[in-house]
C-alpha cells in the first residue's frame, strides 16, 4: 500500500529540499565501495527507468571494468505520460545526487553527468541548484546536460551518445555503455528514482530496503496514474501493490474502465477485468510477459475507443523512431498507417493481415529496443481489443480537426 520513502519529508508543494535540510533530516550516506555493491546485490533493487535490470549486477559489471569511469543520472523522462522522475528531481534533488555520488565514490568515477529532460524546467532548476550546493569535491566532477525532447533520448546508449557527441540517437550494442560509454570509459547509466533508492540503501541497508514490499516485490515504486481515475498523479507505493489498490488510493475510477495501459507506451494493454489484480513489481510482471516500464498506469474509460487510442500512440511511436534502422523507421510507419486506416476507414482484412505479419517481422531488428517496445504495445492492443479490431467502424468523421 501507500508508503513514503523517496517522497517522505517536507510537503512536496514546497519545492526542492535544500542540502542543509536534507542532511539534517537524513544524515550522510554511511556505506560506499565494495560493501555498497554487495548490499545492492542483496537488496534486489531493480532499475526504475523501464528495463527493471538488477542494479547490483550492473554495478558489479562496471566495477570489474578497467580505467576511469563515468556515472550518468538519467532524468530524461521521455515517456509522455510519466511524471515521477521530474517530481522526484523537483522535490528531492539531493536524494538523487546522493545516489549518483555514492556511485561515483564506489566506482571511482571521474565524472557525474546529470542528464535532465530539457522540457522539465522545474526539475532542471532544482537539480542545477542542488548540484551547486554540494561539497566542492563533488561539484568539481558533476555537471548538467540537457536531454532533447524525444522518446528515445533516455535510452542508455542514446544518453551516452548525446553526452559524447551531441546526438541523442541510440548506437549499436554491443558494446554496452557499461563496457564502453562516454569517451570510451565504462559508464553507469542509472535512472534518477533508482539512484534515490541507492541513497537510502547506503544509509539504512538492504534489509531495511526489503522490509517494504508485498507479494514478492521489494522496496517502493513511484507510479504515475493517468486516465479515468479521480486523482491522477504520482504515488509512492510498496512494490507488489495491486493496480486496484493504487487506483483506490487515487480516489477510485472516475467512470467505468475497459482496459488499462500498464507501463506506458512500451507497455501493454490489459483488459480491465484482468488488470486490477496485477501486482506492481517489475520482476513479477516480467515473469508474466508484462512490463512495469517506468511505472505509468493509464486507465481507459469504456467511453473511449481502444483502437483509436492505439492508432494515435502508434503514430507517435513511429514518429519517434530515430530514423537510423530501416525495419524500425519503415516498419513502424507502415504499422501505424495500417492502424490509422482501420481506425479511420474501418476494419479491412488486408490491414489486419499486415498487422499480424509485420508485428512478427519487425521486432528484434533495430539497434535499440524501440521497434520491439512499439510492437509489443501493438500486439497487446490486438489481443485486448480483438473484438474492436475485428469490427471497427469508420471513425474518420469523429477525429478532432
Amino acid at each position, binding site marked *: 500500500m501507500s508508503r513514503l520513502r523517496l517522497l517522505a519529508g517536507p510537503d512536496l508543494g514546497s519545492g526542492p529540499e535544500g542540502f542543509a535540510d536534507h542532511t539534517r533530516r537524513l544524515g550522510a550516506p554511511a556505506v560506499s565501495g565494495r560493501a555498497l555493491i554487495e548490499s545492492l546485490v542483496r537488496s534486489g533493487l531493480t532499475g526504475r527507468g523501464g528495463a527493471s535490470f538488477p542494479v547490483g549486477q550492473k554495478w558489479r559489471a562496471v566495477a570489474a571494468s578497467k580505467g576511469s569511469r563515468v556515472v550518468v543520472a538519467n532524468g530524461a523522462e521521455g515517456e509522455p505520460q510519466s511524471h515521477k522522475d521530474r517530481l522526484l528531481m523537483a522535490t528531492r534533488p539531493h536524494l538523487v545526487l546522493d545516489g549518483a555520488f555514492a556511485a561515483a565514490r564506489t566506482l571511482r568515477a571521474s565524472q557525474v553527468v546529470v542528464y535532465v529532460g530539457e522540457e522539465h524546467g522545474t526539475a532542471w532548476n532544482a537539480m542545477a541548484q542542488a548540484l551547486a550546493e554540494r561539497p566542492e569535491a563533488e561539484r568539481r566532477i558533476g555537471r548538467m546536460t540537457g536531454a532533447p525532447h524525444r522518446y528515445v533520448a533516455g535510452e542508455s546508449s542514446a544518453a551516452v551518445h548525446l553526452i559524447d557527441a551531441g546526438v541523442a540517437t541510440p548506437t549499436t550494442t554491443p558494446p554496452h555503455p557499461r563496457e564502453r560509454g562516454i569517451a570510451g570509459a565504462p559508464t553507469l547509466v542509472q535512472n534518477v528514482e533508482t539512484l534515490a533508492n541507492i541513497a537510502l540503501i547506503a544509509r539504512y541497508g538492504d534489509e531495511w530496503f526489503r522490509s517494504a514490499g508485498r507479494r514478492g516485490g521489494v522496496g517502493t515504486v513511484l507510479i504515475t496514474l493517468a486516465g479515468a481515475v479521480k486523482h491522477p498523479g504520482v504515488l509512492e507505493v510498496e512494490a507488489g501493490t495491486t493496480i486496484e489498490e493504487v487506483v483506490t488510493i487515487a480516489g477510485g475510477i472516475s467512470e467505468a474502465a475497459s482496459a488499462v495501459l500498464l507501463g506506458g507506451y512500451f507497455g501493454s494493454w490489459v483488459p480491465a477485468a484482468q488488470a486490477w489484480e496485477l501486482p506492481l513489481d517489475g520482476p513479477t510482471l516480467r515473469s508474466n510477459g508484462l512490463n512495469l516500464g517506468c511505472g505509468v498506469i493509464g486507465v481507459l474509460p469504456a467511453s473511449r475507443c481502444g483502437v483509436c487510442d492505439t492508432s494515435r500512440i502508434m503514430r507517435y511511436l513511429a514518429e519517434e523512431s530515430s530514423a*537510423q*534502422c530501416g*525495419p524500425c523507421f519503415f516498419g513502424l510507419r507502415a504499422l501505424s498507417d495500417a492502424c490509422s486506416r482501420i481506425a479511420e476507414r474501418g476494419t479491412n482484412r488486408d490491414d489486419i493481415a499486415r498487422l499480424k505479419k509485420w508485428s512478427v517481422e519487425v521486432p528484434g531488428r533495430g539497434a535499440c529496443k524501440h521497434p520491439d517496445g512499439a510492437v509489443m504495445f501493438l500486439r497487446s492492443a490486438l489481443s485486448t481489443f480483438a473484438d474492436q479490431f475485428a469490427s471497427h467502424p469508420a471513425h474518420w468523421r469523429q477525429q478532432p480537426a
Partner: protein
Amino acid sequence: MKTELHMTIDRIKCDGHGLCAELLPEMIRLDDWGYPIIAPGPVPGRLASHAQRAVAACPTLALALRRTAPSK
C-alpha cells in the same frame, strides 16, 4: 572444440541494398521495405562460403560473420 558461424548485422549501417538476399537466399529474405530478415541459428557448413560471399558483397559493411562457441 567445434565452433559455430553466426551472421550478424549492424542495423544502423544497413541500407537495404539487398545483395545479401540475392547471394544467400537460403538464409536471408527481404521484408516489405527491402531490409534483410536473417534465419535464426548458425550458418550450416555447406553454406559457409556463400555466407562469406554475401558478407564481402555488402556495400555498407553491415553484414558480418562471427565464429562463436556453440550455444546449448
